[in-house]
């Protein structure tokens, strides 16, 4: 117990852990307080709607909601609170719950009947039988729906998940890595209780950190949700929440909120144990972070790309990402295909959490207790590159060796290159049929819209009318027995022609819009350009920005921080070139790293789009592209592409320099990495989790989307903070001397 106590004490006394916890808790709270589920609708309105729901009967619920909303918002209350009729649709679902359950069971029983395509005892048959049985005990439930913003804030908390991950990553490094770094590992391990007892003590303190962090972060989400919006009647069945209407478990909302927390924290405990195992195995913090990033990236990729009902859905659900999202486990009944046996997802995932936690804990203890746990990086996993050349006294070349080889920047870049190459060779040109038909029209009338354009379009319109008449005529008559062949062929031909109607309508409307615009717009091939410029969503750009920032943080953080940590800074600073010249050379290396990362991240997509899509009419105004009509200024498409890529390049270089300054200010590598992760990696991560964050801090600039996602206030704030960081780093020398 004493050892556990001391390990906890060491953790609590770590300034980095305490400061990071405070910062992330504050960020989490700010996010919860600024959560705006329906823009323009005050919290009080939502709370009243929910309160009045409790006492109203089911017939008047919607009317109550509308009337309450109208008291707070004078115009368009219904459209604001009930966009796309979502509210009404969800209310309908709860009203028709019993019918839904009956249909679901009957369909499952029907599908469970053996056929020539589905043998008795097969996975599909068993799964259908299981599904029918699973909903037996919830069929009599009576869901009671009302706005669930409070519970949603707690249940769908991707931003909090990212903060939690950052916290346990840092915790793993502090608990596992600090003793190695300060040389205490060897001293500790030679004592009687310095191995298995200490390993258990460290594991216990890590799990304690995870539980306390989870309670603080998720607890605050729940509390804010309860205060701001209310949680409603906690004794109503879980199926009352639209997200869980197909849940097969008979439990209340209150019970689910507790189970949700327990499973989430247990899953993060499993992740924490896994991270401890990896951190203890690797000597270098950089390699640990790189491995953790790769494992995380692969997990996310598997989770997002595999379908729910795929034969490989085990990789989707028995996956670290899914395990930390219990809401997906309870949203509906699903079986995993494990060696052709149907295993309930919930059972399998809960078992997986237990197995990962136990296995990671055991392996961690084993690795900690073996000889490899000691030492300061002498036996690196990645073989050192032996550069076969005569040594030189050129400072720049020596610094390059130190950064790329000694500080593992080359290893990080190699991992990035492998990931990007894999992504490049798996890129697909997502052309749907309608888009291909649209492009066939652009081939005819692309470019400026003239009278000839409309002549063509009107002719096409006439052709479509004719084809419609032919189709109507065909459908209205009954062909004779010997006409079936030609009849069917004619019908098929008309249907094929009519498939172009949607594309035609789209280009016709676009041509009219262009004709009425005063900007000399043109009709262009849009698919490739839309992909390149993130017109259909900026998630991909934000993801690339996240990868770039992560790679830069891993490469640049050690440049100064590692020297400070080793204690060699003092020696370097005593030399002629150990101050200004060294900083200048390191700045140049920082720029080189930024350029390398930039090209590795952004070039593959550009090359792919150029090779697989039609990229023409680049001299047309950028507003010619659907989705970019509101871009201000007179830029051509080519000019806008160059601007976006230039902005990404400048942002990468500036962020790289700022990271170097952070490294210069940091006392050790863990502090530098944590600070750079917090400042530069967390924002794009948050943008992926919550789209509102895409407009904040550096996210729009590193992703290249400021024209759509940023404003002057954000730009001023971003520039001010970057300058502050750089000034602090430049003054770092004076701080070190005093």
């Amino acid at each position, binding site marked *: 117990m004493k050892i556990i106590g001391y390990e906890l004490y060491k953790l609590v006394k770590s300034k980095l852990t305490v400061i990071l916890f405070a910062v992330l808790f504050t960020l989490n709270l700010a996010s919860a307080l600024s959560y705006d589920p329906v823009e323009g609708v005050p919290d009080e309105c939502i709370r009243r709607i929910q309160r009045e729901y409790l006492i109203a009967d089911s017939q008047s619920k919607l009317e109550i909601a509308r009337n309450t909303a109208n008291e707070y918002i004078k115009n368009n209350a219904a459209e604001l609170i009930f966009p796309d009729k979502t509210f009404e649709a969800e209310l309908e679902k709860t009203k028709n719950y019993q019918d839904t359950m009956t249909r679901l069971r009957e369909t499952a029983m029907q599908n469970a009947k053996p056929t020539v395509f589905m043998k008795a005892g097969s996975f599909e048959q068993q799964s259908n039988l299981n599904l029918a049985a699973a909903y037996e005990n919830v069929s009599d439930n009576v869901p009671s729906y009302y706005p669930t913003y409070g519970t949603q804030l707690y249940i769908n908390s991707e931003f909090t998940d990212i903060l939690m991950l950052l916290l346990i990553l840092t915790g793993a490094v502090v608990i596992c890595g600090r003793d190695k770094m300060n040389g205490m590992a060897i001293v500790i391990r030679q004592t009687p209780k310095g191995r298995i007892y200490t390993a258990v003590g460290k594991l216990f303190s890590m799990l304690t950190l995870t539980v306390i962090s989870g309670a603080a972060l998720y607890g605050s989400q729940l509390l804010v949700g309860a205060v701001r919006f209310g949680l409603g009647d906690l004794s109503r069945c879980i199926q009352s929440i639209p997200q869980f209407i197909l849940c097969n478990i008979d439990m209340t909302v209150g019970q689910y909120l507790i189970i949700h927390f327990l499973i989430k924290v247990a899953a993060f405990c499993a992740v924490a144990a896994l991270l401890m195992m990896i951190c203890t195995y690797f000597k270098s913090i950089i390699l640990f972070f790189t491995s953790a990033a790769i494992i995380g990236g692969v997990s996310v990729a598997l989770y997002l790309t595999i379908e729910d009902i795929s034969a490989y859905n085990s990789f989707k659900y028995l996956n670290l990402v899914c395990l930390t999202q219990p809401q997906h486990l309870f949203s509906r009944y699903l079986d995993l295909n494990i060696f052709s046996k149907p295993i309930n997802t919930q059972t399998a995932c809960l078992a997986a959490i237990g197995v990962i936690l136990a296995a990671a804990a055991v392996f961690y203890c084993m690795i900690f207790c073996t000889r490899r746990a000691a030492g*300061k*990086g*002498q036996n*690196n996993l990645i073989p*050192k590159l032996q550069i076969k050349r*005569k*040594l*030189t*006294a*050129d*400072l720049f*070349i*020596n610094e390059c*060796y*130190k950064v790329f*080889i*000694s500080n593992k920047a080359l290893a990080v870049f190699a991992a990035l290159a492998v990931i990007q190459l894999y992504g490049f060779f798996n890129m697909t040109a997502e052309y749907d049929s309608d888009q291909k038909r649209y492009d066939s029209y652009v081939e005819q009338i692309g470019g400026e819209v003239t009278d000839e354009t409309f002549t063509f379009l009107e002719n096409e319109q006439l052709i479509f009318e004719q084809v419609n008449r032919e189709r109507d005529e065909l459908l209205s008559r009954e062909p004779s027995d010997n006409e079936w062949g030609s009849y069917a062929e004619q019908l098929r031909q008309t249907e094929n022609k009519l498939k172009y109607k949607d594309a035609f309508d789209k280009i016709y409307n676009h041509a009219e819009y262009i004709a009425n615009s005063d900007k000399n717009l043109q009709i262009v091939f849009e698919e490739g350009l839309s992909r390149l410029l993130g017109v259909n969503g900026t998630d991909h750009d934000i993801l690339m920005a996240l990868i770039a920032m992560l790679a830069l943080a891993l490469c640049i953080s050690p440049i100064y921080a590692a020297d400070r940590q*080793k*204690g*060699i800074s*003092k*020696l*370097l*600073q*005593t*030399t*002629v*070139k*150990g*101050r*200004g010249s*060294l900083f200048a050379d390191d700045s140049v290396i920082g720029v080189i790293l930024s350029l390398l990362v930039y090209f590795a991240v952004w070039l593959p997509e550009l090359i792919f789009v150029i090779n697989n899509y039609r990229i023409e009419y680049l001299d047309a105004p950028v507003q010619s592209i659907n989705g970019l009509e509101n871009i201000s200024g007179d830029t051509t498409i080519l000019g806008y592409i160059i601007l976006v890529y230039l902005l990404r390049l400048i942002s990468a270089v500036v962020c790289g320099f700022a990271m170097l300054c952070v490294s210069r200010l940091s006392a050790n590598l863990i502090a530098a990495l944590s600070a750079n992760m917090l400042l530069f990696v967390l924002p794009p991560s948050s943008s992926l989790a919550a789209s509102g964050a895409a407009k904040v801090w550096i996210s729009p600039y590193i992703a290249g989307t400021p024209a759509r996602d940023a404003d002057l206030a954000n730009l001023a704030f971003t520039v001010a903070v970057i300058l502050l960081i750089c000034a602090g780093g430049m003054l770092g020398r004076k701080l*070190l*001397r*005093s």
Partner: protein
Amino acid sequence: MLTVTDLNKHYGKKQALADLNMTFDVGIYGLLGPNGAGKSTLMNIISDNLAPDSGSKILWDGEDITKLGSQFRAKVGYMPQQQSLYDNFTARRFMMYIAALKGIPTRSAREQTESLLKSVELDDVADKHIGSFSGGMKQRVLVAQALLGDPKLVLLDEPTAGLDPKQRVIIRNLIHSIAKDKTVLVSTHIVSDVESIADKIIIMKQGRIAASGSVEELCAALPEECRDLENAYMKYFPDESTEALADEDNRV
């Protein structure tokens, strides 16, 4: 010539150095004193790694070292107390790296590296990684790098810590051989390190100079039978010597 005038240094309320006034000319100076006497603080200030309190002056050939900047650092060779090295550098690469930082041309750097590694008897392991070195070997690498570039002022902080008797003799002889035209400051709490080689001994106590002079001058006041530097040193730390004797009695 290095001149220290009115040198004071506070860490918060604690005074690490108080009113030091010294002049260092060509020769070997031994800084003796227990842990916490202020030796490393003095070394850090002279090497311009630490700022002294205002009013203090460190002059090199009459000019303030903070104003000289890199010109002063070009003349300094510094060996820190901690064994801070790059474990995955070879000894040779580490020496070339320090040579790069000292602005030494490549050809000259290679020659000096070979010569110095030979002087400290590390020439046969020059291409092995420092991470595989013993503590004594790392210490010798640090001594060697301090002598790169033929510095005029050499600051050695605990140069023989962790070395066996034979290696200590090698280092002492090396220091003696290079001191002909240099100012060498050797900070240590091992009396024998400096007894035979130092031209002048400075005994520090609680941030002040307790005594200074040649070995003969410091020993002059002692009886014939115990006339050595160790006893002269102990004279200024009577409490420690009494405790040492009491411990000895208890063991007996």
